[in-house]
């Protein structure tokens, strides 16, 4: 869902060759770069890192929401949540495939995740404690993801841009679904409304952090901007998200956990209080509340599934051998 990898483009992008000049000219002309086109190594590396982090985020993101599939409070909600988490898995698959067009295999990328060497969005290191968290994730986390991802539909790398068009359609559906969960809770019993408020209290600040460090502290945006992988600054996107989300929260009758939040009468923007960047740094560095168990869950699934993957490969090899031995049989 998320693209904090946007903040880590490779700074070693000095390129002066004729190919590099042509490449940049195509990007400036809003041409799409395709997998077989010439591209600077740093562009390739940046995209592999960003797309794979995005894919990992989808896969790890299945865990906090999957945590409520078996406890969803109605059959309709259960089906919708299961379909949603399945969508996230589909996004992951799609994104790994996009990364593969750049020459990085899914196995290699997954190994990096399991070894703790690759990052995924910090937001998934927060726990889902109540059913309202499922509403809040859809409304806020997917809402923030959409802000990040709509510009990626115009990303200069064709496969990523096209993947994002489809992903954004689904995310937008998830966002509305999440908001509808919140609305139902806020119109429900006092206990349900309190559950919704508590979820907003816990998810609001981590969601603002999803856009990455403030522009004043973000070092690598320039190259990504020049390559049109990234089109807006962290602070710009964060502001768009806040401006879109605050009226929605007020409509729910909820209070934002930010005593300093106010609307600037002159600009119309909602201004927020200080973000705890120390918390953000800690979570990104691996110190998130659920970081250990998220990785543990992924490793456990991977290790426990090894014999299944081996079996599938062994069977495929046997079939191929049978077919080679006797081409007339259907193995």
């Amino acid at each position, binding site marked *: 869902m998320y693209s904090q990898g946007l903040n880590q483009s490779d700074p070693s992008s000095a390129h002066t060759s004729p190919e590099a000049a042509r490449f940049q000219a195509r990007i400036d002309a809003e041409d799409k770069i395709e997998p077989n086109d010439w591209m600077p190594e740093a562009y390739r590396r940046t995209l592999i890192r960003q797309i794979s982090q995005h894919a990992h985020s989808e896969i790890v993101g299945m865990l906090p929401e999957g945590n409520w599939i*078996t406890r969803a409070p*109605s*059959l309709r909600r259960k089906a919708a949540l299961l379909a949603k*988490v*399945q969508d996230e*898995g589909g996004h*992951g698959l799609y994104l790994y495939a996009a990364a593969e067009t750049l020459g990085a295999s899914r196995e290699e990328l997954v190994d990096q995740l399991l070894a703790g060497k690759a990052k995924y969005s910090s937001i998934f290191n927060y726990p889902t404690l109540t059913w309202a968290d499922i509403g809040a994730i859809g409304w806020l986390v997917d809402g923030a993801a959409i802000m990040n991802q709509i510009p990626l539909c115009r990303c200069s790398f064709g496969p990523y841009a096209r993947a994002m068009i489809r992903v954004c359609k689904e995310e937008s559906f998830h966002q509305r679904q999440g908001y509808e969960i919140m609305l139902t809770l806020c119109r429900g019993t006092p206990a349900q409304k309190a559950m919704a408020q508590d979820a907003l209290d816990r998810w609001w600040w981590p969601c603002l952090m999803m856009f990455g460090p403030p522009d004043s502290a973000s070092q690598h945006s320039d190259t990504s901007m020049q390559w049109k992988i990234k089109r807006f600054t962290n602070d710009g996107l964060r502001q768009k998200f806040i401006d879109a989300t605050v009226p929605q929260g007020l409509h729910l009758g909820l209070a934002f956990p930010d005593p300093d939040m106010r609307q600037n009468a002159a600009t119309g923007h909602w201004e927020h209080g200080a973000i705890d960047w120390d918390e953000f740094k800690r979570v990104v560095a691996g110190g998130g509340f659920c970081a250990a168990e998220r990785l543990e869950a992924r490793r456990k699934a991977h290790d*426990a599934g090894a014999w299944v993957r081996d*079996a599938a490969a062994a*069977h495929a090899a046997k079939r191929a051998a049978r077919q080679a031995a006797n081409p007339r049989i259907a193995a």
Partner: protein
Amino acid sequence: MTTTITVAATPLARLALARADDALILGHRLSEWCGHAPILEEDLSLANIALDLIGQARSLYTLAGAVTGHTEDQLAYLRDERQFSNLLLVEQPNGDFALTIARLFLYSAYIDPYWRALGATDSALSDIAAKAEKESGYHLRHSAEWLIRLGDGTEESHRRAQSALDRLFPFTAEMFDPLPDDVAIDPADWTAEVDTILTHATLTRPSPAWQHNGGRAGRHTEHLGHLLAEMQHLQRTHPGATW
């Protein structure tokens, strides 16, 4: 405020509830895999199958509820363990991937021809059956293909697949216990279908010394209570709330 409901069992309601409970409980079990499957493609497939089954359950509960005067959620979330009439087979815990696949296969090999037969009658369930058959055909194919891969894969996968079949076979005869006003599936046809796949999979059909039943009468294994406790907890904790 409604906390636990009791259902007056007309023959139609009993039939619809039994089939709905089978679909819901198996769908719930498969949904437990979401995010934890051996490969990403299976995360998607198992979730897909779970969604089909939960969808079937919803249609069947709605039909039963029209007879008994309940909503689909009341039937799913407010009945106690002893009122659930699903097969013991479908409530068995997921175990390893081989057990999950074997469970889905044994059930699908029964329910796929069942839906087809029911869809051809003028039963109140015919429309639901006609739709369910399209889904169960895929479930059968998917699980059979995996069973073949596992049986004819490595030594370990063969061992696990055989042990899954051995573990589950004593729960298969219950599928053929008659329900009121129902169509019957010949166990010999089921056995033939199972044998075809097991031959490809180089697996042996177990001949268990005895068979267990009781699910249709609400006498379950100890596993169902835990599943329901988890599934029903929000509805039970907030009686009467809308979600």
